[in-house]
């Protein structure tokens, strides 16, 4: 689209422009930048996966991100089927509990032997007062009790859990081949409700990236419009618009977004349209300023004068001659704006003011992961790393595009 516009614009003046346009030139420069290219590939992979996520789910490649399998809760990342991990998890828990029972026993026997020496009583009599403890003691020594007739009258919670865990283990082992839930492979583990982390990260990314793209487009559109009009028309309108932008710039906009999000309430917050509108409303300012600057520097150039002398309308000059020439800057700014959009959205979601359940953005996933990170670190690291890689690549791509499209500003940050 953009390319065609540019060629049209040029052809009108009968200027012979070789096919090596700004874009071909920029592409050549971008290709030399290895990191930017790798970033471009990774970003494309993210976008494609996000686009086709529903398809992947419906074909069964991806597990439904809403599917909760309570038995498979909080499993670590692995290529093994869930059943094995569940068995291992329960076995670990049992070993843990047995250790605790043993400890209790040692304390208990130390106590009772002390008691024996003190009262000079016999072993049999000392065991009488609390039968719960002595029985658990016996159970602990041999570990042959399978719970029958013994779980009923024990009061010790540890022993009780040990018994129930052993029962669960038996049940899981029996179902291992029949229950389809135990055959699922969770490569990035599961969350505390037994949902697949991998699917959740992809769907979270879908929302985050969508907000990033839509927000950037909205902000860019408003910014371009205001900037172009302000720059081209000039005079009092320019003055007015730029004062307005200045005042808006002075506002602590993240605070205002937080207020907006808090005030519209839980229900409306669910639709993330509100969220991107809230962020976009306040982030068109930079683009407006940049576009205005570009337009002002271009509007007195020869080709604009030529167009005007041929009777082109203001609208035509702005949209066909001036804007295509500022497109490079706009693209660079938009690319660099997108990661900050995604970060802001996740920032709000992290605080509980963004996307709300059942939808989840990367920010929501991270904040859920934080709550569980002590025991289940992967619930934090999975979405955290996925998000960081994407932001990292967007930043690199933006830098690469700037170097490619605007070689004069090379080496600037």
């Amino acid at each position, binding site marked *: 689209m953009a390319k065609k516009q540019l060629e049209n614009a040029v052809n009108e003046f009968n200027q012979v422009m070789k096919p090596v346009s700004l874009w071909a030139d920029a592409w050549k420069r971008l290709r030399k930048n290895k990191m930017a290219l790798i970033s471009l590939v990774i970003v494309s992979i993210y976008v494609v996966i996000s686009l086709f996520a529903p398809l992947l789910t419906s074909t069964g490649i991806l597990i439904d991100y809403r599917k909760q399998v309570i038995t498979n809760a909080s499993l670590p990342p692995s290529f093994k089927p869930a059943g094995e991990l569940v068995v291992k998890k329960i076995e670990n828990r049992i070993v843990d509990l047995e250790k605790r029972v043993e400890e209790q026993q040692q304390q208990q026997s130390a106590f009772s032997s002390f008691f024996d020496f003190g009262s000079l009583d016999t072993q049999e009599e000392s065991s009488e007062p609390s039968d719960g403890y002595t029985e658990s003691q016996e159970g602990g020594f041999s570990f042959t009790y399978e719970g029958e007739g013994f779980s009923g009258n024990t009061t010790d919670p540890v022993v009780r859990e040990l018994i129930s865990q052993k029962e669960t283990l038996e049940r899981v082992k029996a179902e291992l081949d029949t229950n389809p839930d135990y055959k699922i492979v969770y490569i990035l583990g599961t969350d505390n409700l037994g949902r697949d982390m991998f699917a959740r990260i992809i769907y979270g990314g879908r929302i985050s990236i969508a907000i990033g793209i839509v927000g950037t487009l909205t902000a860019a559109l408003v910014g371009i419009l205001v900037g172009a009009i302000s720059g081209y028309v000039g005079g009092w309108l320019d003055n007015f618009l730029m004062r307005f932008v200045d005042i808006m710039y*002075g506002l602590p906009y993240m605070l*205002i977004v937080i207020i907006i999000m*808090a005030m519209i309430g839980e229900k409306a917050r669910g639709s993330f349209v509100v969220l991107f509108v809230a962020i976009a409303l306040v982030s068109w300012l930079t683009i407006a300023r940049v576009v205005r600057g570009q337009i002002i520097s271009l509007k007195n150039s020869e080709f604009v004068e030529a167009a005007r002398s041929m009777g082109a309308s203001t609208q035509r000059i702005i949209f066909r001659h001036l804007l295509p020439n500022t497109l490079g800057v706009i693209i660079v700014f938009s690319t660099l704006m997108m990661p900050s959009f995604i970060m802001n959205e996740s920032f709000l979601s992290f605080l509980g003011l963004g996307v709300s359940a059942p939808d989840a953005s990367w920010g929501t996933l991270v904040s859920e992961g*934080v709550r569980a990170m002590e025991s289940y670190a992967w619930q934090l690291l999975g979405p955290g790393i996925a998000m960081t890689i994407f932001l990292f690549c967007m*930043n690199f791509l933006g830098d690469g595009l700037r170097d490619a499209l605007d070689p004069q500003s090379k080496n600037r940050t």
Partner: protein
Amino acid sequence: MPRYFIRRVLSIIPTLFIVITLSFFLIRLAPGGPFAREREVPEAILQNLMKRYHMDEPLIKQYLRYMGDIIRWDFGPSYRYRDLTVNEIIDEGLPISMSLGVISLVLATVGGIAVGIISALKQNRWQDYVVTSIAVIGISVPLFVMGPVLQLVFGMRLKILPIGQWISTHGIKAVILPAITLSFPYFAYIARLSRASILEVLRSDYIRTARAKGLKESVVVWKHVLKGALLPVVTYLGPAFSGIVVGSIVVESVFLVPGIGRPFVQSALNRDYTLIMAEVVVYSIILIIANLVVDILYGFLDPRISYK
């Protein structure tokens, strides 16, 4: 210059006025008041509550009353924390938030410039690559990922630093993780910025002249290069400080720092009108003053800038 200064200081007033007015009406116009909760309050009690907080008056009267109170720096009672006035909450949290913010800003600036210098002087050597990669990572890792990961590694696994709260409970050690988290993105950006501008200055004519005069390399770097190269860093301090102020809301929530960040989030979720308004006013004043200071500082450092 004095005229510019006065104009800039006076320009705080309209900006603050807009922020306060905007927030006031945004909050009041939203459906559901601060007393709308899951359990319905009896009508009579609601009436009394409304009266107590002057919410039964027409909006414009409430607004004028509020403006009058703010000028006297009286934020009124909190709607949710019944025993505290908003002023008490702010007075208690503000010094803590301010010290966290200032420590982070100093860390980011000093660290960033130092690392930027090293990186620029060792261009295209391993030091440079390490710095530039750390810088890009720093810009890409969100605060709320960085903070919990640091807590996990240093607090929970290695157990060498406290994972939360503040000096009063854990001593000076408690500052380390929040300050690193909060300053890291700005540290990274400042490192990148100073590296780029030092490289640019190193290529300029006056540096060539200085070297041609036979000045020692250390003199060239410290007296000539730095002076010219730090201007972009100074310009960035304004945005960096705003970023740190906003970021501190998240960092305080993550590390349970008893500053004004957590009450802000809580008040936003609870619709604690008076507390939100007070937080917005305080944050806005901090941000506006910070920008003003940077603007004026910039004028002193760069004689090419003329004030009109």
